[in-house]
């Protein structure tokens, strides 16, 4: 290591040191730096580092707004994502069916009635078909009937002798399960 290496920073900062480095010594260091490649390289490095530090220091007051902006952007994106998620969730809930409807069509044997279940229900221990006492509601109101409702469609041929039922007529019975 060069003997002058310990005085290079002081020589560079001689002005800040209020010229504390004696004139003769300052001249010696200057002469040495001119002829010593190692010290010249070191002085160059010190100057570069000091300059970079100064640039950072002077730019420090400008730097803060950028990071605030970053946070603002991040907050905005997070809010947008949250709103989008809420909207999608609401749409998904609207698309979900209110009533689960199962339509089962059994193969009809020769004399067995074809049964179509409109809604799955737990197996009932006993089925009682009771006649409707009040006036039958119109067709469209059956879909709004109280739960649970099972519609059983029986082909007319299974109830009446062949040819007894006029063409185009069908019978619909409403069945309620009681436990």
């Amino acid at each position, binding site marked *: 290591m060069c003997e002058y290496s310990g005085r290079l920073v002081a020589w560079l900062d001689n002005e800040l*040191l209020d010229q504390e480095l004696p004139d003769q010594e300052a001249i010696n260091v200057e002469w040495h730096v001119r002829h010593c490649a190692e010290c010249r390289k070191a002085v*160059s490095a010190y100057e570069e580092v*000091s300059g*970079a530090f100064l640039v950072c220091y002077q*730019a420090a007051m400008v*730097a803060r707004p950028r990071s605030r902006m970053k946070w603002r952007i991040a907050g905005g994106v997070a809010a947008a994502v949250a709103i989008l998620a809420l909207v999608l969730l609401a749409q998904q809930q609207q698309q979900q069916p209110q009533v689960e409807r199962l339509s089962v069509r059994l193969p009809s044997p020769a004399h067995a009635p074809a049964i179509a279940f409109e809604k799955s229900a737990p197996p009932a221990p006993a089925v009682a078909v009771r006649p409707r006492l009040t006036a039958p509601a119109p067709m469209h109101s059956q879909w709004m009937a109280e739960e649970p409702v099972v519609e059983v469609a029986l082909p007319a041929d299974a109830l009446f002798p062949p040819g007894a039922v006029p063409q185009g007529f069908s019978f619909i019975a409403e069945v309620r399960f009681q436990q």
Partner: protein
Amino acid sequence: VSGDSVPWVLPLARFQTSEREATTLFGELRKPLLRYLVCLGLSSDEAQDVVQDSFLSLHRHLSAGGSQENIRSWLFRVAHNQARNRQNSYDRRFSERLDDAGAEWVLDEATPESALIEKEKFKRLGNAIRTLAGAERECLLLRASGLRYREIGDVLGIATSTVADTVERAVKKLAEKCNV
């Protein structure tokens, strides 16, 4: 002029003089002081508060007939001490502040290649600054503020020769870590 009014006249004249001096110093030193405080890790609002309090103290100091020697280092010392009292996470915030500053500056570079090189340089510098001791960083900051070694010694309460040693050590460390 009655004899009773004499004691009132002198402080008023002194007050007006000190106000003028404080206003002049405010114009000159407000910005460097603010920058120094921000680099120490204070937020902009905190730094503004500290600067205001420091100049109020200066005003009181001058009004009370305090010494006008080394006013710049006196002001930095007051601000420095107030800042230290306010800071909670001093070291961490200091490094972050300078890192951000370097990154921001790099954006102004002309070409992408040079911007990348500069960015790398400032990244290394930021890492190197984190390895510095508190006194080393403070000395470099005050040196970047344009204070002389003697004034830095006044602010930090250390001898001028200690400041010189500390600055030299810090610069060498940075140069070594930054591979320049």
